[in-house]
């Protein structure tokens, strides 16, 4: 038998916090992300609408500039809940496209390469692994949704003479809450698809199909059954309905998409189904070793 001298030196130094360790996974994922020009272009384009919004807000409060281009402030409506709902909808469209491009690449390579056991034989649980991958999309989508919209809100508040910010705090709350909800659902949905379909390209196609086909199907259901519940199959309409509710803007009779007459219950049900389905799929697929039954 070997002689056991107990000479080994386990590392006893200070460890980084659990939260800091969680950021290791997204940090390495971002390295390759911006190497793609297509993605960088798409990500940059997502900031165009908030910049245009900021220009509009700045222009409204800049009377000399308005006068030079022959406009008066009363011709430019005050940014209100509807203004931010439109902004939210546009940014969520970008978020959906970014998710479509990036989401399927998050988990499937680890499954294809068989590197999941490597991650899971660290002080990292399956939940933490999912959370780490979730953060990759979460941080990206935050950067194009609630972060620019919050900055836009703060700019509008700063330029407004009245106590606009306090009176419209619900807009800020609604924008952030609806964005976070949409980010969570989109991220989970794409992670689940990425875990389910191992080919990135195929996962993208499936995800696009699962966004667009149910949307068309929902419209057809609405037409055939004379209902509005078919919109529950359209994720963007679902987000818009919830966003409108949170921002206190009625989405009926002309929301940004022109479609959502979806009851709030339908939207919430849709979210619950997509989220629980995604979590179930992740729980089933994200295992260190595939169990063949």
């Amino acid at each position: 038998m070997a002689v056991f001298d107990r000479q080994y030196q386990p590392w006893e130094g200070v460890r980084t916090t659990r939260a800091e360790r969680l950021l290791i996974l997204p940090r390495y994922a971002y390295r390759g992300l911006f190497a793609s020009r297509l993605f960088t272009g798409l990500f940059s384009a997502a900031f165009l609408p908030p910049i245009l919004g900021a220009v509009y807000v700045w222009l409204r409060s800049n009377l000399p500039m308005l006068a030079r281009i022959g406009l008066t402030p009363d011709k430019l409506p005050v940014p209100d809940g509807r203004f931010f709902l439109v902004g939210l909808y546009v940014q969520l469209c970008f978020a959906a496209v970014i998710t479509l491009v990036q989401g399927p690449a998050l988990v499937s390579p680890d499954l294809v390469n068989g590197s999941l056991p490597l991650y899971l034989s660290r002080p990292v649980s399956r939940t933490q692994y999912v959370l780490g991958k979730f953060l990759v999309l979460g941080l990206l989508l935050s950067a194009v949704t609630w972060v620019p919209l919050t900055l836009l809100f703060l700019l509008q508040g700063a330029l407004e003479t009245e106590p606009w910010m306090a009176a419209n705090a619900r807009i800020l709350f609604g924008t952030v809450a609806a964005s976070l909800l949409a980010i969570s659902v989109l991220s989970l949905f794409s992670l689940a698809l990425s875990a389910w379909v191992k080919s990135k390209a195929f996962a993208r196609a499936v995800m696009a199909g699962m966004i667009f086909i149910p949307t068309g199907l929902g419209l057809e259901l609405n037409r055939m059954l004379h209902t509005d519940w078919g919109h529950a199959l359209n994720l963007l309409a679902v987000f818009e309905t919830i966003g409108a509710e949170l921002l206190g803007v009625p989405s009926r009779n002309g929301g940004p998409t022109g479609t959502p007459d979806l009851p709030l219950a339908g939207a919430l049900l849709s979210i619950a189904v997509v989220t629980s389905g995604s979590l179930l799929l992740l729980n089933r697929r994200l295992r260190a070793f595939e169990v063949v039954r």
Partner: protein
Amino acid sequence: MSGEIAFDDVSKFYGEVLGVNRVTIAIAPGITSLVGPNGSGKTTLMNLATGLLRPTRGRVRVLGLSPHDPERLFRLVGYCTQFDAFPHGMTGLTFVTSFLRLHGLSRSEAEGRAEAILTRFGLREAMTRKIAGYSKGMRQRVKLAQAIVHEPRVVLLDEPLNGLDPMARAEVMELFRELAGNGRHVVISSHILHEVDQLSDRVILVKGGYVVAEGGIHGVRTEVAEEPMSVMVRCDRPAFLASRLFAQNHTVEVALHDDRKGLMVRTRDADLLYRLLNRAVVEDGLEIERVSSADDDVAAVYRYLIEGERDMR
């Protein structure tokens, strides 16, 4: 904290397929080899010990910890899987560094340790190249490096010698001895029996999901009572010795060597044989040049218990 890796009545079924069944073993510090044919359950045992699989029944404890507490377990455990699995696009250095950072080391500390371990494994020049361009032996060394870089107390190595050239193999085996000599548990699964024989303090033989034997190699061989042990004796009077041996109940067979300078004995009790040899030397003046066991090794035990071959001679 308990000092062993304990499987208590552990079974793992993959649906209707048996992984391992009713395994109860305790693995002490030192080098323990898991030996068995493909599909016998060696990797399943390792995956159960690391919590990558959950047992269908029974309980696994690693140094008293549940394998399903990765936060605490993997501070103490390093695992090298048998598969060439690496995240896409990483260099050897970023691979080891990033996984070390998941253990909670700072960037500078992780980079320093990663460089040191990769240098130790002969990868200093290649550490900044992508792993995809590595040879099989280099990939194997990177995998071993990531398994021990955080100084674990338990090291589980699934087929760690695969793909290594003889020089690297000898170095790695020396490293395993060093790890075990420092009081660690080093559990190795391997098909390379003569190296298992050289390395191991104990073996666990697995067949069809069942542990068929465990313990020191000599002890296991002795337990295989139905297979007489073969002992070669080189001496000056083999015919005389043969006549003494035939008078013993434990002797199964004696065959004289062609050169008449030795014989091969098959005995059911090696200890009685060795005592008889001692007496022959003392009482009869027999001059013995060499006594060696022909089948007191892992390969023989493997043949008897795993392959079931009986024609040893």
